[in-house]
């Protein structure tokens, strides 16, 4: 632990030896391609498959009417809504699946897809989520009997009345309307699968790009149980995954169609999305319209916050949140500040857009929450003319207040926010920058400094509150140590690039004393790994990592018994140091872990079970609360409004660090995915529901060219309830970076009286805002 061990998995990744879904080729395998709707809302009048079926190699064209015969044309979403697998009569968004072409080669499948002619009757789509709540808005979900509007759910937390009372008596109230734009994870690997149904054994092997293979197995059994596919007959294998970021949690129609076709024809069926299909049809993230308000004294003591959200879910709520939290963990929106009162309410609506939204590198809507609180905190600082760093320091929850009960009911486990911000301010020379800014402003130059001091909430989660489709959100580890003292460990999680094969090995090495290079980590095969809910929401270290510790400790207890037997002393007389037990006061009398494991197979005490294996299912007592203090400096060209991030300092507190190099890599990647929505990414739809940037030529994913030099550092406050004090880090930078950048840009533009800009903030948007308000 605490060592920058090189990643064990990288040898195969950097040599092109990874094994991704598209690398899997099975004998007799068929290929599937999907016909998609050009319209955002239309009736299907006719699907003409004649020409497609004449193309050599095309085996079949599957439509919703075909699936309807098996009652497989609709499926449940993780949020207990329903989603079409293939439509029978209406398409609800542009790029929706309309039919599937099955062929003997990928090329024939693509040619077949081009040859399927679909006649549509276009209808006027609902694109604006506010308009979809109007009384005269057409009702989109006519499939739901008795549905009289486009409203999905209402959710609230805190006391409306108490909050209103504080607001009406406060010296200062600030308010901003914000949109956290619809974006996409755009992982390097798109989604896909190979569904391989064996008619003889009535057995399905499903190779797929999934972050949660066990949950998927259960879902398949629930959806397909009626056609005879029961859970013991289903094996889900998630091989190497080229980036997930939440986008590989949901079940997409393509997976289900591939299973259905393989089931019907008895051959393996491969489906791999192309880049545009991935961007246009797979679950989006964010898309929250937020009204944020903060009440304070005129000196700047925060008294209360209030947030009102309109969530655009597309045509079905296909988010991937724990069941009881339709708005995810948004209620961490009260932030890192100590005040007693807050109220949040949210309404979700249907529109003619792709369904979602997934938690893109974010523990369920935390990104939206952090953006809202960090932006409105800066807004308060601007209003009362106080330095935003000073305002934060004066309002922080102090380190001796932990565990801290937040206004909306969370128990923050640990943190030292003052230390984090001061470390970041020193690293970037905050006072020097402010002095420089004064000089620059005299010369008419635009320079801004932005701060984000965020608290995350990760590691879902304790079983009393957290489940997905009723399955509690524990996670698991199983360790088998072989007679020669080398181990294999399996987990219910699934790495998509996070480096589990290394960090889990390091955790077990620390607890058992077996060198990490001799611990083989395996995940992703439901036939071999213990059941778990998978990897997202920064939950792997808080849950499965903790399970590894607990399983290793069970084995250490067994080793102690064997050592006592071999050394002929009582267990209490033994001392542990990583790798061996020795007799207290007689250190020359000792047994190494390798000797003790060997004895477990060759010379175990009478009455003891042979072997050296342990499994643990870890149900965390609380979530973990990583935090960070990020400061960003931007220079904006005063004529072209080109934005340059000059410096970005990120101080993270993720508790105890297992592998500093992996943490640093995670922070670098996350920060880059943080500048993405802040400055570049947004899925844009026109009034007709056309996606206007459905390719990576137009949807701007930042590259190394756009990435500034990231300066990182740490404050460490171990989680008091996690067995090794770790908190999780994968998502902090994605969550924390956008408001730091937005705050910096707004700070630069504050000379023009600008108090808020919606992300992504582009040179054009700045020019337009200043032009529209007559500033230039």
């Amino acid at each position, binding site marked *: 632990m605490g060592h920058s061990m090189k990643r064990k998995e990288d040898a195969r990744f950097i040599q092109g030896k990874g094994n991704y879904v598209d690398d899997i080729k099975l004998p007799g395998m068929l290929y599937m391609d999907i016909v998609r709707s050009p319209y955002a809302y239309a009736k299907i009048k006719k699907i003409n498959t004649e020409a497609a079926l004449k193309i050599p190699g095309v085996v079949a064209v599957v439509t919703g009417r075909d699936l309807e015969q098996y009652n497989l044309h609709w499926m449940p979403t993780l949020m207990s809504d329903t989603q079409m697998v293939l439509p029978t009569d209406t398409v609800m968004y542009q790029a929706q699946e309309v039919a599937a072409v099955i062929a003997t080669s990928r090329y024939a499948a693509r040619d077949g897809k081009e040859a399927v*002619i679909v006649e549509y009757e276009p209808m006027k789509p609902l694109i604006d989520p506010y308009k979809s709540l109007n009384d005269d808005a057409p009702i989109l979900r006519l499939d739901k009997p008795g549905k009289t509007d486009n409203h999905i759910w209402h959710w609230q937390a805190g006391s409306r009345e108490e909050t209103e009372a504080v607001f009406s008596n406060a010296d200062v109230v600030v308010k901003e309307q914000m949109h956290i734009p619809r974006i996409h994870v755009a992982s390097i690997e798109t989604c896909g699968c190979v569904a391989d149904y064996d008619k003889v054994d009535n057995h399905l092997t499903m190779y797929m790009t999934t972050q949660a293979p066990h949950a998927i197995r259960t879902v398949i059994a629930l959806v397909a149980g009626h056609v005879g596919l029961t859970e013991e007959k289903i094996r889900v294998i998630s091989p190497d995954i080229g980036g997930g970021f939440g986008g590989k949690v949901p079940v997409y129609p393509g997976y289900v169609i591939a299973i259905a076709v393989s089931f019907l024809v008895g051959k393996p069926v491969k489906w791999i999305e192309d880049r545009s299909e991935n961007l246009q049809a797979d679950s989006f993230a964010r898309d929250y319209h937020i009204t944020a308000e903060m009440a304070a004294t005129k000196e700047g003591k925060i008294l209360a916050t209030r947030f009102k959200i309109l969530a655009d879910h597309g045509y079905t709520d296909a988010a991937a949140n724990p069941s009881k939290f339709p708005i995810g963990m948004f209620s961490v929106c009260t932030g890192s500040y100590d005040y007693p009162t807050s109220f949040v309410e949210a309404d979700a609506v249907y529109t003619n857009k792709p369904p979602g939204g997934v938690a893109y590198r974010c523990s369920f809507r935390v990104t939206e929450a952090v953006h809202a609180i960090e932006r409105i905190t800066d807004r308060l600082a601007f209003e009362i003319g106080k330095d935003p760093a000073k305002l934060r320091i004066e309002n922080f929850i102090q380190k001796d207040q932990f565990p801290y009960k937040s206004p909306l009911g969370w128990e923050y486990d640990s943190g030292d926010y003052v230390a984090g911000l001061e470390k970041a301010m020193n690293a970037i020379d905050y006072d020097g920058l402010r002095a420089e800014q004064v000089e620059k402003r005299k010369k008419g130059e635009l320079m801004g400094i932005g701060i984000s001091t965020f608290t995350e909430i990760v590691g879902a989660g304790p079983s009393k509150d957290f489940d997905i489709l009723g399955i509690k959100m524990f996670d698991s580890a199983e360790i088998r140590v072989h007679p020669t003292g080398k181990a294999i460990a399996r987990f219910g999680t699934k790495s998509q690039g996070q480096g589990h094969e290394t960090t889990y090995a390091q955790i077990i090495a620390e607890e058992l004393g077996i060198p990490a290079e001799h611990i083989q980590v395996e995940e992703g095969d439901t036939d071999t790994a213990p059941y778990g809910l998978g990897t997202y929401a920064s939950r792997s270290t808080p849950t499965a990592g903790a399970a590894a510790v607990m399983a290793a400790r069970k084995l250490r207890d067994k080793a102690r018994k064997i050592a006592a037997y071999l050394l002929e002393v009582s267990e209490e007389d033994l001392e542990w140091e990583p790798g061996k037990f020795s007799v207290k006061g007689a250190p020359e009398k000792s047994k190494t872990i390798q000797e003790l494991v060997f004895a477990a197979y060759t010379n175990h005490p009478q009455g003891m079970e042979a072997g050296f294996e342990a499994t643990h299912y870890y149900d965390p007592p609380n979530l973990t609360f990583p935090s960070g203090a990020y400061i960003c400096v931007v220079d904006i060209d005063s004529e072209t409004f080109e934005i340059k991030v000059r410096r970005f300092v990120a101080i993270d507190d993720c508790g105890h660090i297992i592998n500093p190099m992996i943490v640093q890599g995670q922070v670098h990647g996350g920060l880059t995915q943080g500048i993405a929505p802040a400055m570049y990414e947004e899925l844009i739809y026109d009034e007709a529901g*056309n996606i206007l940037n459905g390719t990576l030529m*137009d949807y701007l994913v930042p590259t190394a060219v756009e990435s500034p030099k990231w300066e990182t550092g740490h404050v460490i406050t171990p989680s008091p309830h996690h067995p090794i004090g770790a908190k999780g880090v994968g998502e902090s930078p994605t969550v924390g970076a956008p408001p730091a950048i937005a705050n910096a840009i707004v700070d630069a533009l504050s000379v023009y009286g600008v108090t808020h800009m919606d992300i992504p903030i582009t040179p054009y948007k700045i020019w337009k805002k200043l032009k529209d308000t007559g500033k230039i």
Partner: protein
Amino acid sequence: MTTSINRTFEINEPIEKVWDSLSNPHEIVSCVPGAALTEQVDADNYKGTVTLKFGPVKASYDGLVTFLERNAATKTMSLKGVGTDTKGKGGADMLMSGVLTDKAGSTEVNVTMNVEVTGMLAQFGSRLINDVSNQVFDQFIDNFSNKLAGKDVNNTMSAGSMVGSMVKGLFK
């Protein structure tokens, strides 16, 4: 997505001659690059096809053209075109109106065109659509002028030339 074009240009022909062409569906459609009339439904309704190429993206539309107004007294006309992609990849709607003004023997033509494109062309062509529409329109004006002057009309639309002239336009 919607794109709008409004142009005023002058043709060195008398207004009645220009009006005869502008109000005649066969004459006007033959000047639109990539367009052809296939059937006359009645006096105001015609069936036709339009093929457009936007770089690598090609779309063919089957459509119905309807004259909404043909007023010889005021020299104003308007027509509506509704098209769907022949392969079910989207659609395009167009509203076009034209007014002629006598300019001492020659004729000033003012034409407004609103095109709304749905589907694949809107997705892939959103950045090109304004430029390409302008190119198409310029070619239409050339064709219309040439036709009235009794010269040959180039009615084909070439992807290469479109994209090529756009790229050249970038370096003007």
